[in-house]
């Protein structure tokens, strides 16, 4: 360890203690990051989100460590010495900076781990979205500052877990709407397909958290932190900026992400062309393969497939192309089921009714379900059980089925959903 670095970590303990602290921070940070499983393997942006979400616990634990450290600093008797220095705020804030740095390394390590895993699993990286780490690091600064405040003013060793609990509570208060969600990082559970982070919202969050951090650090020891004119000016400006950002965030709706005007697509397959959002192409090859296998039944009947099936994305509503409407977990998985592939084949047009607030006719669900089962049966992927209501029709032979399948498929292609009917006897 270089002398300079050693100086930063003096108040944290020896090298072994610092390393143990880092391991502990990574371990607790992994809990929220992995709390939803590893679904983020299917989306790099989601993995990035899962990485920053580790602050849900890293932040409170860092606040607890900061509290314990500042209790030690405040009761060590060095304070009168600090006041005599030319920059008294620097030695006071240095432990906070060290703890923030340690926690930042832990969060970055987790983020690096999950995003790399996602990339290796086939998710396309979006390095240009890495800037969201900046607001996350500012949130961390505010969280650490909570611990500094409680330790510096409270000067009681038992306050460390209280600081951790209080910092965690700030996240809860944001989640229930008691205050703007300035302590929130990641964990939204969306795939970010066709979407990106909203710079305005996250910019406001950055300003607000910086203001909170500056204010709390000043309150932790006003005589030392606010001793020089320059520190007073810098802190005043940050607090003012934070207050403005906080007020703006508290008024109106501020989503953390927004739709991309022209989302990028990745297309695969020749016989059946399927396009998914570039963010979530993990199951694409498998989907194409399964769809191609089942689509032959439609071709045998002379039915024309849409030029391509396109992932449902904001702004993509061309009725001439088929729709890929997958559940979030299907979008993120590496493979899809044959049932999913059949369901996509029964969506040969992106009908507006599928996305309307008014649900499509009830019969459309039943007909699409039966058509999907027919596709599976024809591909040899479905063996109807004895008590299956559809069994008789499914085993009735192609000539019996041709008319209903052809008509239904054309009605689905033309989005004539009201005309959809189940075959007689089903």
């Amino acid at each position, binding site marked *: 360890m270089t002398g300079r670095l050693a100086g930063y970590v003096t108040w944290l303990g020896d090298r072994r203690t610092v390393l143990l602290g880092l391991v502990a921070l990574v371990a607790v940070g992994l809990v929220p990051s992995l709390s939803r499983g590893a679904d983020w393997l299917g989306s790099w942006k989601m993995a990035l989100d899962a990485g920053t979400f580790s602050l849900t616990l890293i932040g409170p634990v860092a606040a607890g460590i900061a509290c314990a450290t500042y209790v030690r600093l405040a*009761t060590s008797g060095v304070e009168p010495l600090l006041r005599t220095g030319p920059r008294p705020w620097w030695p006071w804030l240095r432990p906070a900076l060290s703890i923030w740095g340690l926690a930042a390394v832990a969060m970055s390590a987790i983020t690096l781990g999950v995003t790399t895993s996602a990339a290796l699993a086939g998710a396309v990286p979006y390095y240009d979205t890495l800037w969201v780490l900046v607001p996350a690091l500012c949130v961390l600064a505010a969280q650490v500052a909570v611990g500094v405040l409680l330790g510096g003013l409270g*000067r*009681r*060793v038992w306050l460390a877990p209280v600081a951790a609990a209080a910092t965690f509570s700030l996240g809860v208060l944001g989640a229930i709407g008691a205050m703007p969600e300035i302590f929130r990082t990641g964990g939204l559970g969306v795939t970010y397909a066709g979407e990106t982070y909203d710079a305005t919202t996250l910019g406001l969050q950055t300003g607000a958290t910086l203001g909170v951090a500056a204010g709390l650090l000043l309150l932790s020891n006003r005589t030392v932190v606010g001793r020089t004119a320059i520190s007073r000016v810098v802190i005043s400006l940050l607090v003012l900026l934070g207050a403005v950002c906080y007020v703006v965030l508290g008024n109106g709706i501020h989503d953390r992400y927004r739709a991309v005007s022209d989302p990028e697509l990745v297309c695969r397959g020749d016989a059946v062309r399927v396009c998914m959002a570039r963010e979530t192409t993990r199951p694409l090859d498998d989907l194409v393969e399964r769809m191609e296998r089942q689509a032959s039944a439609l071709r045998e009947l002379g039915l024309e497939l849409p030029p391509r099936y396109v992932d449902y994305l904001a702004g993509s509503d061309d009725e001439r192309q088929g729709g890929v409407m997958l559940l979030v977990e299907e979008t993120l998985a590496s493979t899809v089921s044959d049932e999913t592939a059949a369901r996509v084949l029964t969506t040969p047009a992106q009908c507006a009714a599928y996305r309307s607030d008014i649900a499509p006719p009830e019969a459309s669900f039943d007909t699409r379900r039966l058509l999907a089962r027919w596709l599976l049966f024809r591909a040899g992927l479905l063996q109807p059980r004895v008590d299956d209501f559809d069994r008789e029709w499914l085993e009735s032979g192609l000539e019996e089925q041709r008319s209903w399948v052809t008509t239904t498929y054309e009605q689905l292609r033309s989005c004539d959903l009201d005309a959809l009917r189940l075959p007689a006897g089903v």
Partner: protein
Amino acid sequence: MTEVAPGLRVSELRCHYPPASAAVVDIGELTLGPGATGLVGVNGAGKTTLLLTLAGARRPQHGTVTLDGVDLYGRDRREIVTRIGFMPQELDLPRELRVADAVSYVSWLRGVPGRVAATREPELLELVGLQDRRTDRLGRLSGGMRRRLVLATALVTAPGVLLLDEPTTGLDPEQRANLRALLMDLPGATVTVLSSHVMEDVEQMTTRIAVLDEGRVLHHGGTAAFVEERGGPHRSAELAFLTTLSGARS
């Protein structure tokens, strides 16, 4: 039956801090009998380790420590350590605790019966001059007051042996003089061991002296004679100490 000499006696004592194997204390024989003995040495000489060992707080890796012939780390450890009062360099108590509670708590932890402790607490605080500070929180005490409180907590069991670890370090001259006067007038303790690198304290407060360097005893004898013989024409305790040290090192 062999008569056992009163006081603390160490024999073939060796202490080290694992994983390091170098001895921090390495003493063949040392008897600290009735009266006050000064334990002097430079920083890192092994004074605090020796005192902790003598206080029953740190068993040596090798050798024995006895008080009046009873092994300090034997079966009767709990009973025998109550006969030893130890005044550490730092106050090991929560800052939010009040002065009277601090004395009462240490009394309880040291096994003093409640009724005895209740009587002794005001007496001890009066002895160290903190009777008006009973309800003050420890965090509000000055350095000198904290030292006096630590002394009071060392005396809760009315020990026959009193070990003082650099009691005046960090105090201003007035506080040092006051504490020194207090220590010299202490009633009760028959064996006192004073660890210090302030030679003036040792010279004034002790009748015997043990010079420690790198864990070994370089000299053990009367303080006055030590200064007389090695202190040069001005009978300087500092010079006596330095002469002993340089003689051993050369």
